[in-house]
């Protein structure tokens, strides 16, 4: 990323734009949680908005939009893969089991 004064001024405007977008998305998250769309849909909508907010932070504030280093993208891709595995593994292992099974070891 170029560090010239003019470029940085453009960046500052972009940061303020992202700040506004994050504010709006936070309000939207709270509003969406008050609309009864069913538990699963509510959860999906909230997580989708959170994912959008997270991508804005990562791309603009963490400068990934301008990141050209392959090793960082490879690190992030592996990270995303294992994170997805971590999230979906419990769902896969509990699918079809009675709800109480998960808690059976808790006594």
């Amino acid at each position, binding site marked *: 990323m170029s560090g010239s004064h003019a470029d940085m001024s453009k960046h500052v405007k972009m940061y303020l734009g992202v700040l506004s977008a994050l504010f709006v998305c936070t309000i939207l998250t709270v509003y969406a949680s008050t609309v009864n769309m069913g538990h699963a849909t509510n959860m999906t909508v909230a*997580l989708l908005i959170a994912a959008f907010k997270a991508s804005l932070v990562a791309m603009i504030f963490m400068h990934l939009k301008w990141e050209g280093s392959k090793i960082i993208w490879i690190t992030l891709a592996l990270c995303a893969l294992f994170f997805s595995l971590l999230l979906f593994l419990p769902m896969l292992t*509990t699918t079809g089991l009675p709800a109480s099974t998960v808690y059976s070891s808790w006594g």
Partner: protein
Amino acid sequence: MSAGVLPYTVETHPVTGVYSGKLGTWLFLASEVMLFGGLFSAYVLLRVGAPEGTWPTREEAELSWKIGGFNTLTLIISSVTMVMAWASLKMHNFAKARIYLIITVLLALLFITLKLSLEYYPHWHEGLKPSTSVFFACYYTMTGLHALHILGGVVVMLYFIGPGASLWKTDPEHYTNRIECTGLYWHFVDLVWIFLFPVLYLMN
């Protein structure tokens, strides 16, 4: 290059394409994703597997979305002030960058103060402890670990506002890179909260 001086703190490494501090920070953040990912995974497992009626409702959990939402906005603003500190350094304005760093620290302390005084303290006195339920065990673990990360960030920022700032006089580019790495960590802390807020405050 003299012995004992770390190479590639400013210039780009020919193999990785970035300065070494940045690569190190990203690798550290990848390990952090795994740490919080494990906790989110445990939460999902316990939430999905909870027998009907055993998971507390939003009212029973007594977590105010207003406090959680306010804290979300606090962290978002602190992320902006952090990146503005870095942008100010890129524009060779150290005084402005220092002010932005101080504001970031103050916002972080506001977050912690609100968390302790309006959530942890009253909850604890009402008997809502980690041993109360699986939900509260998850809640205290996840938000507690996140709060510790915030405190860690505050310590690093205070160092760069105070004694670490002398590097700006001798090697401004190196100092700017250090602030960029601190920023990467800080944005990650913000990013974790972006997920914690809806999961813990809005989804019961």
